[in-house]
């Protein structure tokens, strides 16, 4: 008889803890931002280990919200760390690519084995995205930092609009495959545990999808933001892959596209272990917690918070690039 009230109390406790966590995250990110912003441009009183620790904690919290909000870690990492930490944007972008790649690598094996990531769908798109990511990375490293900051700010604000307005289609209707998709045999079957059904899928508009992935790869390499935010709507809304297959395959494409750009940053000397390693480890630990909190956190609320964070970070990047808010 007491089971129901106890269960409700537990649920309420879980929600309270989750909300407290989100509040803590917001406060910590904004206070870290305010502190870091005041200590810019380069020198600060804080020792190296203080910054490494702050980076680890920030990435841990970013990892927690990255999973339930459905965005990759890279797109949160670059504008927030680039805007509020004293590191040059070159090093932040190098670490951002690594963060995006490591998160996607960690999830990849499980998604492939579960049929939620398709190698046949990913490979043709990833070849083009990884080639253009090289061009993006090269351009990003020769452009002045202020130009990249302004472009990054505008891109992040564009992503905010995309996230706030883009719709999702769980199972898009693909009446007829295009010739290229047929020739490449891009189709599959996955088991949807939520419905306890096997669902077959196919794609269309493959040539247009290939073209857009060239642009996505370029932007990912240029800003070091990964590209989960763009992969997902293109695979789902344009090409017609079911949302779960689109999300899984997006990660697989990210592993290839980000790795080619990471090589460029690495060979140009733009990867610093002291920035990259705490970020990757913090983000991955946070993502593990985020995956566990999926059932407790309200996804729509987390998404709104992430959009707010990105809006703030985008404005910050833009104003920093314009020299208005150093």
């Amino acid at each position, binding site marked *: 008889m007491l089971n129901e009230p106890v269960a409700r109390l537990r649920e309420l406790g879980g929600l309270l803890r989750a909300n407290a966590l989100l509040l803590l995250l917001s406060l910590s990110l904004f206070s870290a931002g305010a502190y870091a912003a005041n200590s810019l441009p*380069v*020198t600060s009183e*804080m*020792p*190296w*280990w203080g910054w490494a620790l702050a980076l680890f904690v920030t990435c841990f919290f970013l990892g927690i919200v990255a999973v339930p909000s459905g965005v990759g870690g890279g797109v949160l990492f670059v504008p927030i760390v680039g805007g509020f930490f*004293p590191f*040059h944007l*070159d*090093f932040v972008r190098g670490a951002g690519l*690594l963060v995006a*790649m*490591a998160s996607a*690598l960690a999830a*990849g*094996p499980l998604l*492939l084995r579960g*049929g939620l990531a*398709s*190698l*046949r769908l990913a*490979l043709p798109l*990833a*070849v083009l995205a*990884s*080639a253009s990511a*090289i061009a993006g990375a*090269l351009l990003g*490293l020769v452009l002045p930092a202020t130009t990249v900051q302004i472009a990054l700010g505008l891109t992040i604000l564009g992503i905010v609009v995309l996230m706030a307005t883009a719709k999702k289609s769980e199972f898009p209707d693909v009446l007829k495959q295009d010739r290229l998709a047929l*020739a*490449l045999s891009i189709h599959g*079957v*996955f*088991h949807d545990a939520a419905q306890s*059904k*096997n*669902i*077959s899928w*196919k794609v269309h508009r493959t040539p247009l999808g290939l073209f857009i992935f060239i642009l996505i790869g370029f932007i990912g390499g240029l800003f070091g933001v990964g590209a989960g935010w763009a992969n997902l709507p293109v695979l789902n809304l344009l090409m017609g892959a*079911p949302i779960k297959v689109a999300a899984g395959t997006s990660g697989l494409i990210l*592993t*290839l596209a980000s*790795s*080619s*750009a*990471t*090589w*460029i940053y*690495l*060979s*140009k*000397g*733009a*990867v*610093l*272990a*002291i*920035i990259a390693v705490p970020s*990757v*480890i913090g983000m991955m630990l946070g993502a593990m917690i985020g995956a566990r909190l999926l059932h407790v956190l309200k996804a729509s609320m987390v998404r709104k918070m992430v959009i707010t964070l990105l809006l703030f970070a985008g404005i910050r990047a833009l104003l920093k690039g314009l020299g208005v808010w150093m």
Partner: protein
Amino acid sequence: MDVNTPDNDPIISAEQQRYATWLNWGMRSGLAILAVSFLAYVLGWLPAHFPLEQLPKVWGLSTAEYLKQTGAPTGWAWLNLIGYGDFAGLIGIAWLSACSLLCLLAVMPIYVRRKDRVFVAICVCALLVQLFAASGILSSVH
């Protein structure tokens, strides 16, 4: 979209299974290398090429300025300095970046056996792109 028809059981292809297995081992070993080498760096088990205490003075500089001030190398020359903690940390990063390259090499024989020429060609292209990026040829491009 077909739902629950008798002939649409979710069969994960052999190449997808193999890719997942290689990716799993590559990712786990890469993260282990990353964590151990970083600990060796920050705990002082390995000497630092550029002193950790001095890093806050240079990490706000552009890559070109940073390289000039610290004497850090470009391309693959960092391999000559892996005895230093700052460069030992890059081994894990390079390993994680090479994961996908190894996975592609692992699945290619399956496509070849199946005579799936289009996907053999796609794998070759993906490999060439990754090798081109990793080669360090582009490190001298300004």
